[in-house]
């Protein structure tokens, strides 16, 4: 086998270049700590890295979401426990106010303290975040939820929206509760609204709230239809929400002469139609907040007691207030319990997110990180090879027959 002089040079140079290339690659792997410098180094690994990095970015974001949610829940919890303490005081005052030994002045000072507490609680219920968002306004974060109206009451101005935050891949946590849920917990009196175009034909008075309430929650909306035949004779039918006649015997096509009254399950209906009419009766129990309860009580206490009738009025008001404060506190407690449960769930989610992060990071590292031991060993081996090539090159090219021809 013959070898040309050019070959000697090109071959050696090629070999040394290859060695240097490998050295450069290893050098980069060691310097950056990354095994995969481009997707071509490990296409499957590179695609996995995209997915893992996406997952990691999400997990990190979930972690900060959880922090945010935790803060909101903590703020809500702190406000609620302040309100709870204020309610305890209201409760105490109410019990005091029930004592028959109090003078009008005493009652007035209790009423004053109640008004002060009301203002304090209203302030808490209108708590804003640092960025000015009302935390108990539902979705209406820029609307003050409890504003005193002309009648001295505090109707709720917000809505029922609740914000959910992503705490895990498939775990949304509710970060706040609307004021309607937290505070509007004291049932008011049953209100029957009449819907339709002919509502003038009917007047309704609630005579027995308990049975009317039970009836409405059983029957849904009632429908009263009044018919008038060609001779001017009237008849009515009273149906439940699914169209079945109510009453026993059934109140169906009952002839009557207006004006007429009808007693049904705690309702007194006065029918005074001028023609055929179709009316929907809807029973609604509006909810009120502790603010209205305290203010109503204060109003009652401020009226001077002169006789036993007044005494009775005061003790009725006190009894009503006690039971209302109770309902309000009960609701507060159940919201606080829910907040606690959410906090707990968040903590568990945080733990599992962190665990997942750890796993994802270690998977990512096993895919993309350089195995330093192997890389450094390879580097040294390659160095030795390069040095050897260099030595050989020097020796091979140093030999020439021309040196010996004199």
């Amino acid at each position: 086998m013959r070898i040309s002089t050019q070959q000697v040079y090109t071959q050696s140079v090629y070999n040394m270049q290859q060695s240097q290339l490998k050295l450069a690659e290893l050098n980069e792997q060691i310097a950056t700590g990354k095994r995969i410098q481009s997707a071509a180094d490990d296409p499957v690994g590179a695609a996995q890295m995209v997915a893992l990095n996406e997952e990691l970015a999400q997990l990190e974001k979930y972690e900060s979401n959880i922090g945010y949610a935790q803060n909101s829940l903590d703020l809500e919890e702190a406000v609620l426990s302040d309100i709870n303490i204020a309610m305890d005081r209201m409760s105490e005052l109410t019990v005091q106010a029930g004592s028959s030994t109090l003078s009008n002045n005493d009652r007035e000072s209790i009423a004053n303290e109640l008004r002060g507490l009301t203002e304090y609680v209203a302030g808490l219920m209108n708590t804003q975040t640092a960025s000015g968002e009302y935390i108990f306004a539902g979705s209406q974060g820029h609307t003050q939820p409890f504003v005193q109206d002309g009648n001295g009451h505090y109707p709720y101005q917000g809505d029922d929206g609740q914000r959910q935050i992503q705490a895990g891949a498939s775990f949304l946590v509710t970060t706040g509760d609307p004021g309607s849920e937290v505070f509007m917990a004291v049932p008011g009196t049953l209100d029957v609204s009449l819907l339709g175009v002919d509502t003038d034909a009917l007047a309704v008075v609630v005579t027995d709230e308990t049975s009317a309430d039970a009836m409405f929650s059983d029957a849904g909306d009632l429908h009263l239809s009044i018919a008038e035949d060609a001779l001017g004779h009237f008849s009515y039918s009273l149906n439940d929400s699914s169209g079945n006649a109510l009453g026993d015997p059934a109140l169906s096509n009952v002839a009557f002469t207006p004006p007429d009254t009808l007693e049904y399950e705690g309702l007194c209906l006065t029918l005074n139609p001028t023609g055929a009419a179709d009316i929907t009766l809807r029973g609604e129990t509006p909810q009120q907040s502790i603010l209205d309860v305290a203010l109503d009580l204060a109003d009652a206490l401020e009226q001077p007691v002169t006789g036993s009738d007044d005494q009775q009025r005061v003790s009725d008001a006190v009894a009503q207030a006690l039971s209302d404060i109770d309902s309000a506190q009960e609701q507060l407690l159940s919201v606080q319990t829910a907040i606690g449960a959410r906090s707990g769930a968040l903590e568990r989610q945080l733990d599992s997110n962190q665990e997942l992060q750890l796993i994802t990071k270690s998977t990512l590292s096993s895919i993309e990180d350089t195995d330093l031991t192997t890389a450094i060993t390879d580097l040294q081996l390659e160095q030795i090879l390069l040095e050897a090539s260099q030595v050989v090159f020097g020796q091979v090219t140093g030999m020439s027959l021309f040196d010996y021809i004199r």
Partner: protein
Amino acid sequence: MSNLLHIGSQSLASNSYALNIVGQNIANVNTPGYSQQSVNFSSQAAFGGSSTSVERITSEYLTQQVWSDQAVYSQADSYASKMAGLDNLLAADGSNLSKAMDRYFSALQNVVDDPTSAPNRELMVAELESLANSFNDMDRQLQDQQAMIDSQLSSSAEQVNQLAEGIASLNSAIQQADALGKPDFELQDQRDQMIGELAQQMDLNVVEQGSSGYSLYLDNGQPLVVGSHAATISTTMSDSNPTQTALQINFNGQQSDLNGGSIGGKVGGLLEYRESLNTAQNEVDLMALTFADSMNQQQLAGMDLNSEMGSALFSDINSHALMSGRINASLDNNGSLNRSWVEITDANALTGAEYTLDITGSEAFSLTDASSGQQIKSSALSQVASVADLTDGSYYADWDSGELVVAVEGMQIHLEASSRFMLSDSFNIDPAHDAAAAMELILTDGSKLALASPVRISPAADNSGTLSVTVTVTDPLATTFTSPPHALSPPVDVVFSNSEPPTYNIYDVSDPSNPVPLELNGSPLTDQVYSSGEAIQLNGFSIRLTGQASPGDRFSFSYNDGGVSDNRNVLALSAMQSESQMHGVSWQSAYASMIERVGTDTQSAQLHSQASLSVLKSSEEAKASLSGVNLDEEAAKLVQYQQAYQASAQLISTSQTLFQTLLDAV
């Protein structure tokens, strides 16, 4: 005695010539392509001394082998090195679109946490802007690659032309030298060298054709050089994509197209790379298109900080320029079009393919998926009577006046000619064309981000069932939201009855004191049987109730005026990250599989390039070991011929001495 003198001078001349050859060999030890020459001595009859002839040591077989290995290697090398660039572009942290999406979706989570925060909203706008920029940048880089291919193709064409011209003229020069009986080895070496360089550009078949020298043919049989005639290669606009360069070969006035499959060499590698680049470009465009569209749709379905319905985030995917850029009439068409455009009707249904629409009959056409070859014939689609009736999988045609609208796979292709379409005219369709370049954020005010849902849900305070409700806006342009704006028209109540199973009525509560049953498509929504989890479709939005209903339970739906703290719409935006968005997968997994595909192609191209380099090396070595100059060998020959020269001179001297001796003796 005169014989001796004759032999001596002959021998002197022979050896001196041999020494010249040695000199020539030594002088060309580093000349690329030089084949060593050797002197053959032969004895002459009856004291005739020796005569010499020179031979060029080479092997046609080995040379051919080097040429063809060269073509294979330079194709593999040019493809691999270009692919490595693409691979880096897609996967590098700075340009990686998946990372840009990670950053965007992370910013999105901030507004999920606190939608009222102005800084959070501005951050989201900034990330949207940066994401759009990432798409624009990616597109620009890919376009630069396309431009680079175009310019390299034309410089390759120029080089091929020069080499072919050179080889053709060498063919005739060599032929003339041969005819004079003085073969010119150096010209032959030069020609071999030039063919080698040509083989780097394109794969060649080299045929030795007697006296006319070497003829070169391309792999598909097209002649490049025949004798002293050379073809010219020119660049022209590609028929299927007017923005790209195509190659044409012209031999003796015969013009024909060169297509990528069989060209080989560097040019073949470039064309192969262009295929990969086009695929990547399509994928990036489709990603941009579906992203902009999905985000826009969801943004339109929401409500902003000022309680207005959302407006589009990104520029319209169906702008005039984009729609008409998606379709190109083939240059060979006989008919001409007045207008043509492609409208995307459902971005998520796009397959990412490019199509060719061919007129296959006087009233027939076919649509071919360019990558899979799958064909949809007009006979397989239903014909509808008006454009308004079009649904996916149908077409509208008014053949006499030359109007055709085809609705398939998420798009509507519109063609308008002034008369009937011409048979075998064809049109190229690229539905995602330019989407990444055109992606532009048009919403720049953070307060205009529609993070809230426009529908407020208010359960009655005294509901006793366990129902929970969600609302999905299905058509933000429905009259419910648009007339008048800032209101839900009409607001509705869902009221449950006491039937078993539970039923509900839906009322229009425009007048709260007189609810009337809501009518949908002419029928009132009364006594509807409730089934938990079922969506109730109303005009423009749907309601989904889940749980246990109690008689009298009531839910009111109204416009979410002032709902600044609501984050329902942005939750839906955020959920898109993991939803399937383009050909059945999420954006980021589509991107990951693109990286994987390009990475695999790059890896195998690199392996192929290394393997073909080894093959080339070994065939070059085989050739070099035969034809290359070895200095030690030449040194030995130098000594050998020098000594012979000295001996020959001695012969003459001896002959002279002999003659002198004779003269002296006389």
